[in-house]
C-alpha cells in the first residue's frame, strides 16, 4: 500500500509541479532575454523574440532593453508591448477567462488519467481477489486474498512463508507417523 501511495504521490507531485510551473530557469540569461524568451514576434516570422532577428523582433528587444535600463518592471514592459501589439505576442496566454482551459485541462487530464488508471488497476486486482476467494473458500490460497485485501508485501510474504513452513511440518509429521 505504501508503494501504491508513492505511485499516486508521484502523479500528484508531477501535476503540482506542472500547475505551479515557472518558466525554465534562465541560467546565465540576462533579464532582457528572460522577458524576450516569453514573447512572440507579431510579424509573419512568428519566432520567439529572443531568437528573432527580423525588424519587429529587434525593435521589441530594444524596447525591452530600454525598459530595463529605465528601471521598469517586467510587468510594465510586457504590458506596454501587449498594448502596442496585442495579446498575440504573449508566448503563453495569460491565465484568465477562457484561457484558463488551456492551462488547467492538461493537468486535469493527467490527474484524471492517473485516477482512472489506478481505479482500473484496483478493480482488476479486486476482481481477481474475489474470484480467488470464491474458488479457494478458505484453502491454501487465502494468503493471496490477504495480499490483495491490502496487507503489505512484506506481511504477505511472511504469511506465505509461515504457511509453507506449517505445511512442510505437517507433511514431515505425517511421514514420520
Amino acid at each position, binding site marked *: 500500500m505504501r508503494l501504491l501511495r508513492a505511485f499516486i504521490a508521484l502523479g500528484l507531485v508531477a501535476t503540482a509541479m*506542472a500547475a505551479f510551473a515557472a518558466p525554465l530557469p534562465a541560467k*546565465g*540569461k540576462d533579464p532582457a532575454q528572460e522577458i524576450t524568451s516569453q514573447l512572440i514576434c507579431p510579424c509573419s516570422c512568428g*519566432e520567439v523574440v529572443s531568437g528573432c*532577428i527580423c525588424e519587429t523582433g*529587434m525593435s521589441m528587444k530594444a524596447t525591452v532593453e530600454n525598459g530595463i535600463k529605465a528601471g521598469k518592471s517586467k510587468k510594465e514592459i510586457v504590458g506596454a508591448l501587449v498594448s502596442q501589439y496585442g*495579446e498575440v505576442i504573449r508566448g503563453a496566454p495569460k491565465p484568465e477567462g477562457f484561457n484558463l482551459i488551456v492551462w488547467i485541462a*492538461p493537468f486535469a487530464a493527467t490527474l484524471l488519467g492517473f485516477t*482512472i488508471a489506478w481505479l482500473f488497476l484496483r478493480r482488476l*486486482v479486486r476482481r481477481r481477489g474475489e474470484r480467488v476467494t470464491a474458488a479457494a473458500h478458505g484453502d491454501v490460497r487465502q494468503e493471496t486474498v490477504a495480499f490483495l485485501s491490502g496487507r503489505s508485501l512484506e506481511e504477505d510474504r511472511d504469511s506465505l512463508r509461515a504457511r509453507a513452513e506449517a505445511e512442510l511440518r505437517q507433511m514431515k509429521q505425517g511421514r514420520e507417523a
Partner: protein
Amino acid sequence: MSELGRLSLLLAFACSIFAVGSIAWGLRTGLSGPLRGGRRAVWTVCGLTVLAVIILERALLARDMSYRYVAEHTSRDLPLHYAFTSLWAGQEGSLLLWLLILSAYGSAFLFAYRKRLDPFYDAVAMVIACVMIFFTGLLSFVSSPFRILATPPPDGMGLNPLLQDPGMMIHPPILYTGYVGFVVPFGFAMAVLLLNRSGTRWIEEVRRWTLFCWGFLGVGILLGARWAYIELGWGGYWGWDPVENASLMPWLVGTGFLHSVMIEQRRGMLKTWNITLIALTFLLSMFGTFLTRSGVLTSVHSFAESNIGPWFLGFILIAATAATALILYRKALLESENRMEAVVSREGSFLFNNVLFVALAFATFLGTTFPVLSEAVTGTKISVSAPFFNRVNVPIALTLLLLTGAGPVLSWKRATASVLKRNFILPAFLGLVAALVALPFGATGIYTLVCIFGAAFVVTTIVMEFARGIQARKSAETGALPGQVVRLVEKNKRRYGGYIVHSGMVVLFLGVLGSSVFQKEAHGPLRNGESLKLGPYALTLRGVTDHQKQNASLTTAIVDVQRDGKFLATEHPSKAFYSKSQQPMTEVALHSTPMEDLYLILGGVNEDGSASIQAYINPLVSFVWVGGLIMVLGTLIALSDKMRLRREEKSA
C-alpha cells in the same frame, strides 16, 4: 502529359473504390476471386500513383511552366536537385507524396503477406484502400497537381528559400514514411474488429509495423529539428511550432502503444486500450496533415477558405466515428484474458506511462489548436507557443523519464518488496549523487535537478539490467565484456533494443536540458575589428563580403573566434537574398564540439556599415543528435529480432 497525370489519378480513385468493394464482397461471400481482384486493384493504385509522380517530376525538372504547380514552386534558376524535391514543396505535391507512400505501403503489405491465404489480410488491405479513396479523390477532384495555366508565365515564382536545404530533400519523405505507415496498424486493428478475430498473432505483426513507422517518424522529427537548427537561425532546434507538434503527437501516442502492446502480448490484457491507441495514432497522423495543410492554424477564416480543410476534417471525423463504433460493437472480443495481480507491477507502470504519453499528446494537441478555438470563441487572437509548452509539457516529460527507469525493473504480474528494494535503492542513490554533484555547476532549478536525477536513475537501472543478464548467462558465456554484451543483446534483441532506446532518450533529455537551461546569448552591432564577448569566447568582426550563387546573393560576415584568448576558427555567418522570393534568409555559422555549439547569426548589415551579430553558446546540443541516433540504433535492434524469427520460420 497533364491529361495523362489527371487520368492516372482518376483511375487510381476508381481502382481504390473497386478494391474496397471487391474485398468487401469477397469477405462477405467467402469467394477468393473478388479478394484476388481487390488485391490487384491495390497494386494498380500504386502503379498509377507512380505514373502520376513521374509525370509531375518530369514537369518539375523540365520547368514546364504551363503546370500551375510548377510555376508556383520552381523557377528556371532553381538547382536541379531542388526542382526534383519541389514535389513536396506545395499542398498538391505533398498530397501526391502521401498517396505514393500510402499506396506503396498497401502494395508492400500485400507483398509481405502474399503467401497467406487468410482473408484477414485482405480486410487490412481493404481498410488501407478506404484511405486511398480519400486521397485519390482529393487529388482528382479538389486539389489536383495537374492544373494547367491558360497563359504560362515565362518563369516560376521559385521555391521557398527555407526548403532549399539538403535536409529538406530527405526530411519530408522520411517523416511521411512514418506518418503514413500508421495506416497499416490501423488497418490491422479495424480488420480484427470487422472480422471479430481473436488471438495474439496479429498483435506481434502490428507491433512490428508500428515500430517500423515509429522509427521513421522519429528519424523524420530528428531531421526536422536538425533542419530548424541549421536553417531557421533562431538558436534552437525545437520551437513547439504547430508543424513540429503535428509530427510529435502521433509519435507520442505510438510510443505509448509500443509499451502497452507488451501487456497484451504477455498477459492478454488492455486490448481495448491498445486498439484505441492504434486508432488514435493514425487519426493524429491524419490530423497532423490536416493541421499543416488546411490553413486552420493561420486563422479560422483561412480554414474556411481552404479547399481541403473541410474534407480532411470530414474524413477524420468519419474514421474516428467508425473506429469508435467498431470498438464498442466488438466490446466482448476485447475482454481481458487475464486479471491483474498487483498494481505495483510492470503492467501497472506501463499503464501509468501510457497515461503520461497520452497526456503529453493531449497537452500538445490542446496547445496547438487553442489559438483557433480561442479566436472562434472570444474573437481575440492569442499565441500558444514555446513558453507555454515548456511550462506544461516539461514536468509531464520529466515524470515520464522517472517512469522510464522504474518500469523495466518492475517484474511482471507483481513486484515484491525485496525486488523493489534490490532494484531501486542503488539507482535512486546514484541519482541523488548525480543531482548533488551537479549542484555546484549551476544546476539549481527543480526541473534541472529532477532531470539529472532521472537520467542517472534510468542509466543505472539499464546498466543493472545488462549486468543481471550477463550474470544469468555467466555459465554459458566466456570472453571479454563487450562480447558478452553483444551476445546478450543478440539473445533478446527486442528487450535490449528497448533498453538502448531508453538510454538514447536519456542522452537526448540531457541534450535538451543543457541547450535550454544553460544557453547563453549575446548580440550587438560590430564594426570591423570590434569584438563581442560571450562566455569564454571573443568574436571579432574581420569584414563583410558579398557574392553571388546560382539563385541568391550572399552577404557574409567574417568573424574570428577566440576562446580564452586563443584563436579557434574563422566563421562565416551569412544572409542570403533569394532573387525570386526577395526573402532574406540566414545561413548560420556553427562551431560544434561534443560539449557545446557556438552558433552565429548575421542579422544584417546596418547603414553605418556595422554588422548585427547574434551569438549563442548552446551546451550539449550534440547530445540531442547522438541520443536520437542511439534511439534509432535501439529501434533497428528491436526490429531485427523479428527478422531473425522470420528467417527461422522460413528455414523450419
